[in-house]
């Protein structure tokens, strides 16, 4: 579904991603772990071109994202993203936050979008917040709304950039529950996270990124209990 070919990203003289190639399959939940500064977030942000790769190619649904002639807005509509800091729009109600994109991109009419939004809000248990503003919600609620906002575009894949890192510990669970439910529904997901429990429990595949390269990858059980590389062993020793 997403094909990453020889992806390299440099910020000035700093090489954050070094010739990474990877394939993400339909229906897969891929979790990316690694120490901070390893390039996890940059890798994720390159997938929907929030960061422009220095070199290499991203192919999504057979279309090259990196080709300058590609309509990047059309492609991004099929690729939802959830951010560490939620990035809800503080100047709009929750309902408007969710329906703005589907209506403006002519994916749905206003009524369809509102109906779809209410449906999704019910699923995450926040239907009563439709007319609230983001400032009135807790972190966990904001992040669940952010997930709904991405879902309302009916994306083929969801990218999560450390979705629980900015949350109070007691709110992590409610967000992870939503993500687990999505994974169980067969949504294709790429998740950058520090939640090793989530990775072990939900991921189909875990990638361990360090210094801009995928050092090791595999199914969560093997990766966590039988790490091969010294780098991963020392990382796991610190976080587990």
């Amino acid at each position, binding site marked *: 579904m997403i094909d990453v070919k020889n992806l390299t990203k440099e910020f000035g003289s700093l090489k954050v991603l070094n010739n990474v190639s990877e394939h993400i399959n339909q229906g897969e939940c891929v979790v990316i772990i690694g120490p901070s500064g390893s390039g996890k977030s940059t890798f994720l942000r390159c997938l929907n071109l929030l960061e*422009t790769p220095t070199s290499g190619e991203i192919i999504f649904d057979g279309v090259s994202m990196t080709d300058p002639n590609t309509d990047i807005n059309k492609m991004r509509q099929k690729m939802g993203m959830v951010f560490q800091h939620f990035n809800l729009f503080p100047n709009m109600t929750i309902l408007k936050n969710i329906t703005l994109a589907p209506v403006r991109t002519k994916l749905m009419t206003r009524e369809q979008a509102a109906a779809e939004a209410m449906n999704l809000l019910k699923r995450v248990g926040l239907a009563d917040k439709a007319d609230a503003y983001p400032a009135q919600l807790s972190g966990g609620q904001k992040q669940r709304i952010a997930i709904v906002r991405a879902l309302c575009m009916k994306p083929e894949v969801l990218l999560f950039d450390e979705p629980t890192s900015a949350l109070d510990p007691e709110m992590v669970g409610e967000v992870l529950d939503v993500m687990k439910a999505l994974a169980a529904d067969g949504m294709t997901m790429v998740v950058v996270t520090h939640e090793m429990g989530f990775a072990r429990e939900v991921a189909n595949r875990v990638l361990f990124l360090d210094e801009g390269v995928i050092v090791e990858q595999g199914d969560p059980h093997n990766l966590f209990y039988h790490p091969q590389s010294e780098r991963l062993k020392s990382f796991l020793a610190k976080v587990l």
Partner: protein
Amino acid sequence: MMVAGETTTAWQKFYVRFYQAFIEGNRWQQYLNGVGTTLLVTALALLLGIILGVIVAVVRTAHDQQRPGHRNPVLGLLNGIMKVYVTVIRGTPMMVQLLIMGFVIFASSRNYVMVGALTLGINSGAYTAEIIRGGLMSVDIGQMEAGRSLGLNYTDTMRFIIVPQAIKAILPALGNEFIVLLKDTSLISVIGGKELLYAARGVVSRTYEAMYPYIGTAIVYLVLVMGFTWLLGIFERRLRASDRR
């Protein structure tokens, strides 16, 4: 009204000078007309300044936010022109700009008020542009990323997400610029614009008495500025009230 040799009390002196400065020959009408012109020039210059400011700010921000490898050459050229405009206007004194506009570029025009309003508007535009650009850039970069990640294009993201949030940050500085502009209209008297200070100078040249006309002028400006500051305060409080909800 004054008899030679007669001694006058301080009160009488005050009355006579006040009378000469403001009442004799209906001079208060000249001041009043001056205030009218001052407000008209301020309004016109503010309008022009905001229009120019928005254009410059939007072009410059759009230029700076292009993705690498997607540089638009037209935008690059426009950005260059805008940069020159801001540099030249901010780099030269307003008085010099007025003299050049009044006596060089529009030397044949007799409509000093319009030339003055045009010059002030062009001047204000450069500062307003930077105020607006600062406001647009003060909005968290994550807001733009969230908008774009949903597939919204640049224009829609700006229109529905960035600009509404930027306005709140811009308003106090814009109010300040408006007050500066109001006072700077006094400069157009150097090219013959018949605003408040021009009226005062006219009276001074006829009565040889400077204190009352100039202090009176200062008081009028002060009252105007205090009035507008009060109005802006109400406006801002209202915006912030909608914030808390």
